[in-house]
């Protein structure tokens, strides 16, 4: 019965746990993709990448991604910005960060990873200052 249950996901296209069809490596990612993220900004305006724990209060990057994407979709980016700013202020890391921005950036993903190419486009949804 256990073996049959493990094989059953072959017949369905929906993921599950612990019975799964393991679809994580077959999702098609386009060459040009947008990413929602929360970034820190130092005194020169340079972006400082914040950790998933700071962005979403979770060590898992996937949850951090989901948190920012949900805020952008629901237009609650100002509230998320404030929460992230609070975590930055309470953290001993990122002391150089003076403000937080919620952004959507569009990348040609292969040059971006291989050559650190700049984003093709960037949209800022919210910005808030760190209060220390």
């Amino acid at each position: 019965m256990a073996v049959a249950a493990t094989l059953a996901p072959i017949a369905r296209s929906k993921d599950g746990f612990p019975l799964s069809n393991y679809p994580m490596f077959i999702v098609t990612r386009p060459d040009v993709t947008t990413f929602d993220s929360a970034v820190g900004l130092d005194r020169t305006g340079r972006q400082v990448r914040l950790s998933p724990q700071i962005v979403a209060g979770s060590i898992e990057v996937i949850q951090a991604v989901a948190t920012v994407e949900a805020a952008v979709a629901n237009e609650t980016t100002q509230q998320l910005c404030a929460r992230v700013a609070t975590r930055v202020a309470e953290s001993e890391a990122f002391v150089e960060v003076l403000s937080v921005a919620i952004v959507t950036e569009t990348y040609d993903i292969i040059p971006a990873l291989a050559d650190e190419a700049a984003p093709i486009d960037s949209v800022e949804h919210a910005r808030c200052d760190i209060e220390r």
Partner: protein
Amino acid sequence: MIGVITTTHRAVDRWLFASLPSRQMLVLHRAVVGSALFWTVVRTPFWLDQAALSATRAAPVGVLSWLPSDQIMLSSPVVLGLALASGLGLVLSLLRPRWPLALTFSAIGFLVLTTHGNSWGQVLHTENLLSLHLLVLAASPRPPVGDHSRGSTTDGWPARVLALLTVCTYLVAGVAKVRYGGSDWISGHTLQNLVAHDNLRKQLLGDWSSPLAPLLVEHRWIFGPGAVAAVAIELAAPLALVGRRTALLWSATAWCFHLAVLGVMAVLFLYPLVGVAFLPLALSFEPTHSSDATAAA
């Protein structure tokens, strides 16, 4: 045709229910339970983070999927209490493998904790097999220990069911790639973009990413063979049930696959990488020394 089916059925039956040395089963018991204990300890902080998420983010899966989203939430004290209780049960099961309730309770607790952790919009797939193995062990006869285990044999079907679960999970993954990935997967394009996307996303969110990926990602010729190899390894999983040599060979190949995934995608599948996921395959073909001795006599 019927004769072939009957012969095959008898062979499978003989293999599945043949006894194993008690010490081998004890080793397997401790390896799986120990893995679950370690995982419970290192993942509890993450599970507590999940418990703090808003109910609007809930997407119940598995045993929690029948509940409404706003009712699946476990509070942080409940998650911590469940993790501590499950962990204690796993420790007791390591020290006293023959205590039945400790492992049963812990397996259910582990399933609830891991299911809850995966019910927030993203299933992580790194603990599926461990959850399944633990549940089967909890439903199995407890292995003899101490003086009772030396030279004795015990039911071998739990190890073989665990081996079958390992094989099935890889087979399902391979079928999914062929079924849904198609020519884009085989060409390497899907894999190449997946590696780029996953690592870039990790960098943008300040997480650890693969140092190899930026060096490899522009060379599609690498990803075609890599994608074909991944599918081949997964679809070849049933060959591990043919005999001990093929089991060890396939396990080593699958282990290398996970090492490559770690190196190129910075995705850690700990249970296979420490080898415990493949241990049932290695043990399922052990000779039963006591029965051999009896037969020889």
